[in-house]
């Protein structure tokens, strides 16, 4: 079916910010995913390309299979997911209330925001020796690294979400006699909720990217550790498998958050 054309004869595919046919959307999305896969398999099957240098998709799939059946993949996935979720949840538990206060009270903002802004530019990897010194090399240290990687960004994002609550919503409540506590509870929090859930989703993505860094610390399990070990033994196919799996789990969680967002905030539907 040919796409409807606007005056001027340009197809909607090339109109700025114009909705396109859902079928076209899916075809393009599929192309965007399949093309690199084809390119990869083509490149790896070229003569003279060493499997250690670039394994093909089939090699990676086979490796995933043996990893799953003989090498304890489910356990690796479970422990890595636990570390990521624990570090991220710990961040959220502190960042949400703290960000709420930074975003609501200028005094708290003045006290804490400059410091947070400063620390967030410090590289999480560089904290590893300190974490080992202070937290040890047990489970706690991996969670601590993920916490350091996500927490400071998260606080600032939460504060920004809270500051975006329209002043008129707050002032309307004030003129109806709401106390400060009631404004926080009944206006600011519900108003910022959709943005907060988005912040949680985005920071969950970042927490996954810190996994490999976290498992640099004396780990003997987990996806990140498996990638690091595979590197030592030049098991390039396993490196690929590990990276793809981390990406895949991240994607699934991200989609879960998006679904929750649609279900939790039906009143946002159809708004632009």
């Amino acid at each position, binding site marked *: 079916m040919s796409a409807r054309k606007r005056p001027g004869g340009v197809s909607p595919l090339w109109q700025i910010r114009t909705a396109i046919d859902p079928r076209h959307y899916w075809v393009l999305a599929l192309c965007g995913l399949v093309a690199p896969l084809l390119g990869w398999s083509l490149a790896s099957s070229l003569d003279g390309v060493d499997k250690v240098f670039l394994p093909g998709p089939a090699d990676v799939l086979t490796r995933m299979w043996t990893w799953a059946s003989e090498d304890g993949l489910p356990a690796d996935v479970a422990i890595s997911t636990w570390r990521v979720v624990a570090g991220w949840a710990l961040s959220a538990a502190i960042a949400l209330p703290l960000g709420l206060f930074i975003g609501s009270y200028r005094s708290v903002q003045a006290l804490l925001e400059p410091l947070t802004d400063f620390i967030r530019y410090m590289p999480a990897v560089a904290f590893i020796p300190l974490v080992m010194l202070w937290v040890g090399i047990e489970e706690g240290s991996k969670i601590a690294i993920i916490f350091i990687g996500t927490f400071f960004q998260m606080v600032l994002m939460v504060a920004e979400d809270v500051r975006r609550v329209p002043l*008129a919503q707050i002032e*309307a409540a004030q*003129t*109806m*006699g709401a106390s400060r506590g*009631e404004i926080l509870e009944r206006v600011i929090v519900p*108003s910022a909720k959709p943005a907060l859930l988005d912040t949680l989703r985005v920071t969950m993505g970042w927490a996954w990217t810190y996994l490999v860094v976290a498992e640099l610390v004396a780990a003997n399990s987990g996806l990140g550790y498996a990638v690091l070990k595979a590197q030592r033994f030049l098991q390039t196919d396993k490196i690929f498998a590990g990276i793809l799996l981390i990406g895949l789990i991240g994607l699934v969680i991200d989609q879960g958050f998006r679904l929750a967002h649609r279900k939790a905030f*039906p*009143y946002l539907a159809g708004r632009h």
Partner: protein
Amino acid sequence: MTASIQIRDAFKTFGHGPRAIQALDKASLDIRPNEFVTFVGASGCGKSTLLRMIGGLESLTSGSITVNGQPIAGPGVDRAMVFQHYSLYPWLTVADNIRFCRQLKAHTRDRTSADVEKASGRADALIRLMGLSHVAHAYPNQLSGGMQQRVAIARALMSRPPILLMDEPFGALDAQTREVMHDLIRHVHRIEGSTIVFVTHDVEEAIYLGQRIVLMAPRPGRIDTLYDVPLPAERHQDMKLAPEFLALKRQILDRIRETSGMKTDLEQLARLSAEAAELEA
């Protein structure tokens, strides 16, 4: 329920030092119980500032504002406010937006079951009065701008405020919707007995709604002239064509032009376009 407002030498500067902006210069005004006062004036003359000071959302640099003789200290349930936009709660349905104040401690103290019943009756009555019955369970962003402002007004009226403060509440609405809203707000004024202070850019709106018009002038923001509106209490749209209406409109527009210090220099414009034409030739 109704209330009077006394404004004495209300003075307001924003900021400090050399960069301070003087928003309002010693304004004094008495507003009678159940009066409908409209504020007009050029942009930046301090209309919103004065209204927000009455609402307790802005502090005074000096001077005083009292309600029934009581100095105001911050926002209070006796002074409801309707904003131009973005003040509704998008996560609540229309009915829940209107009932919002019922959840607040300020309104639930010493509450008996009879009060609760009366309140839910009032919410229903307001929904009907504002013509919102068919959208009572919709969310605000499913509504047109005009409908949203009806919800905002109903919400402000819910607690029977003696004073209703409105800052360009119909500024974003089209002309037809505005006319409907004008008659609606006049009806509310009559049956509720509230004192209404209404800020607008639109002189016609100011005359049609108000019993008295306060003209403000900029640089520094101040009260310039007061006009009594020579129209009967009962109004209808035809009056906008009455000679006394048009005469007052002209008088006010002229005064706004004089005080705003802004005018289109037609000669200058003509010279510029002549030069442009020469360049092209």
